[in-house]
């Protein structure tokens, strides 16, 4: 009976904190499977009461795997080790305090719970504040896992083994030693995470600067165009005068239609694009768009961009945003080379509650289904290309505040990303 109560308690502590740390929704299946896993571990420790370490390690392994299945995040294993450490640490420290001062049982219990809640809450805060670094690359994850894993083994062999054998003095000495070690380890890990964050920020800054210089280059190009236009302008006036002097009205009409209107449209199209980009307050995207727009211009694909109101922020990670925009533009440019009358339209529309990014390009009439375009490794141009769209969809599906539509309508291939402001 006592055994069952203990294993239930263990279940509530370990899995409750895991659900909390992951901010996972508790569903029936999850609850049931975690319960069964716990029952299995309890059974194991019942069968082998002498080798407690067996059930401890299998508990870590099983809960790690289970939460990896639930969340598909490798940090499941990290959390699966940290939480038992927290549990055991709070159990043993409070046991020692109780043993030392001869305190009653209910104080013992509340001490354990208090310590555990504090430790787990602290851990969640640390994890949440560094989640950008932890999620983005595998190196900090691996190092953290190593540190935590070693800590667990050291704790186990130095504290828990003597405690089980009843040598409380040794345990006390080791525990105080290890408490120090624990503090040092926490400090070291946070230094590691801090430097990683800083490095990441530096890399981001570098990208931003690069994009900005692209933007400046594009602007210079527009400036040169305008100068050339000014130069032509004088010539155009002279030709107009020539037509008027000889009173060749038909010739004048023809010249006006074919030369002046056309040149005006082309020159001002670019100028207008930059005028629209002015309203975008996000430098990285500005640079990216400027570069890509110039590229489309070189390939003589007409491209139009609309930014009717100024936009200072978009509730989406900037790197993700540049990635998806790059994917969409590259795809649109690629597709445009296949059609006779290419056109790309792009809009950033700011609404009260949301920002809408619309992307459309003319598309060749062909029998393809959209879901095929979004399958990995699918491309109309052979293998190993066109990885873009599935990647874009995957990135966007990770955001709860983003919805993404993609469809074909009257020969246009249209992508719409709606980002709710947060």
């Amino acid at each position: 009976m006592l055994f069952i109560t203990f294993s239930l308690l263990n279940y509530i502590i370990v899995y409750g904190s895991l659900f909390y740390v992951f901010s996972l929704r508790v569903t029936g299946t999850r609850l049931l499977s975690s319960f069964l896993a716990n029952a299995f571990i309890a059974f194991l420790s019942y069968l082998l009461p002498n080798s407690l370490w067996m059930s401890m390690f299998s508990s870590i392994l099983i809960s790690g795997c289970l939460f990896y299945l639930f969340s598909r995040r490798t940090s499941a294993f990290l959390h699966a080790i940290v939480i038992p450490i927290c549990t055991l640490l709070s159990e043993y420290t409070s046991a020692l305090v109780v043993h030392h001062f001869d305190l009653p049982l209910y104080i013992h219990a509340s001490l354990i719970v208090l310590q555990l809640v504090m430790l787990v809450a602290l851990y969640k805060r640390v994890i949440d504040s560094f989640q950008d670094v932890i999620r983005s690359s595998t190196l900090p994850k691996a190092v953290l896992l190593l540190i935590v894993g070693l800590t667990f083994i050291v704790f186990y062999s130095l504290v828990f083994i003597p405690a089980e054998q009843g040598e409380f003095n040794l345990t006390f000495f080791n525990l105080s030693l290890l408490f120090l070690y624990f503090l040092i380890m926490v400090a070291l890990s946070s230094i590691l995470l801090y430097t990683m964050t800083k490095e990441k920020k530096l890399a981001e800054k570098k990208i931003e600067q690069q994009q900005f210089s692209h933007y400046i280059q594009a602007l210079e190009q527009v400036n040169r165009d305008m100068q050339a236009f000014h130069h032509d302008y004088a010539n155009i006036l002279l030709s107009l005068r020539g037509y008027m002097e000889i009173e060749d009205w038909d010739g004048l009409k023809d010249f006006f239609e074919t030369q002046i209107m056309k040149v005006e449209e082309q020159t001002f199209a670019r100028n207008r694009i930059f005028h629209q980009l002015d309203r975008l307050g996000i430098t990285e995207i500005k640079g990216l768009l400027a570069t890509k727009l110039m590229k489309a211009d070189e390939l003589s694909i007409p491209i139009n961009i609309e930014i009717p109101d100024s936009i200072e922020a978009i509730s989406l990670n900037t790197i993700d945003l540049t990635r998806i925009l790059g994917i969409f533009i590259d795809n649109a440019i690629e597709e445009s080379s296949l059609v006779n009358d290419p056109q790309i339209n792009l809009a950033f529309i700011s609404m009260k509650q949301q920002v809408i990014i619309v992307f459309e390009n003319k598309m060749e009439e062909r029998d393809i289904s959209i879901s095929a375009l979004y399958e990995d490794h699918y491309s109309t141009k052979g293998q190993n290309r066109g990885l873009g769209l599935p990647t874009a969809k995957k990135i966007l599906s990770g955001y709860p505040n983003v919805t993404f539509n993609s469809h074909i309508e009257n020969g246009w291939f249209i992508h719409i990303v709606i980002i709710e402001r947060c």
Partner: protein
Amino acid sequence: MKVVICEDDQLQREQLLKEIQAYASFHEPSIEVVLCTGSPDEVLAYSQLQQADCYLLDIELNHQLDGMDIAMDLRKNDPLTSIIFITTHADRLKLTFSYKLAALDFIVKDTPKRISIQLREALQAAFATYKQIGQSEQLPMIQIEIGERIKNIKVQDIYYLETSSLPHKLSLYDRNGFYEFYGKLRDFEQLDGLLFRCHKSFLINLRHVREVNKKERTVLMANGATCDVSFRLIRELQKRLSLQTKDLS
């Protein structure tokens, strides 16, 4: 269909009026211009008292309000009215018009001949919308809001709906693409007798099932995608499918 024109250039205004009247007398006699003005205030005053079915608005007006402002104001009172913008080359904001203001169409100022062609097309579209609003009996639809624009998708054209890994987010797949929006699968089950909830995360349209794989417990849809079928429902799915083919033959 009542039409309102707001254009501050007198010459262009008269040209628009003439064009619309000509189109009305030849094609749709029910089209009638009820107001033709250069002042935004008059348009707003009119819309307070009466309803027009179609507004032609110049974007650049010599006034503190421009065409977009008028459109925003009109939309507040009447979400269904058709709005057609008249614009110069310099500010061709096609996507903004349609997603921010749910405008029906826009006309680019050009030679009179080209304006006339564009105007005809826009009027035709406006008239089609006007007729559609009049019809009370409609096929079941799912409406998806994209900014101010509302996209209607006929239930019979839907392939399937799927839940996403994030709560409250649904994806809808049809022949032309996919759409994500916020909602619950449960709310769509009753829309049509041929929608079938074959799995916790899938609501499929039986019209577009290509084949059922009983061993893998999946169903292949017309767009090549596979949906899961839960163990309990595979029998019922097959029953419903055979019932449906019987109905057709």
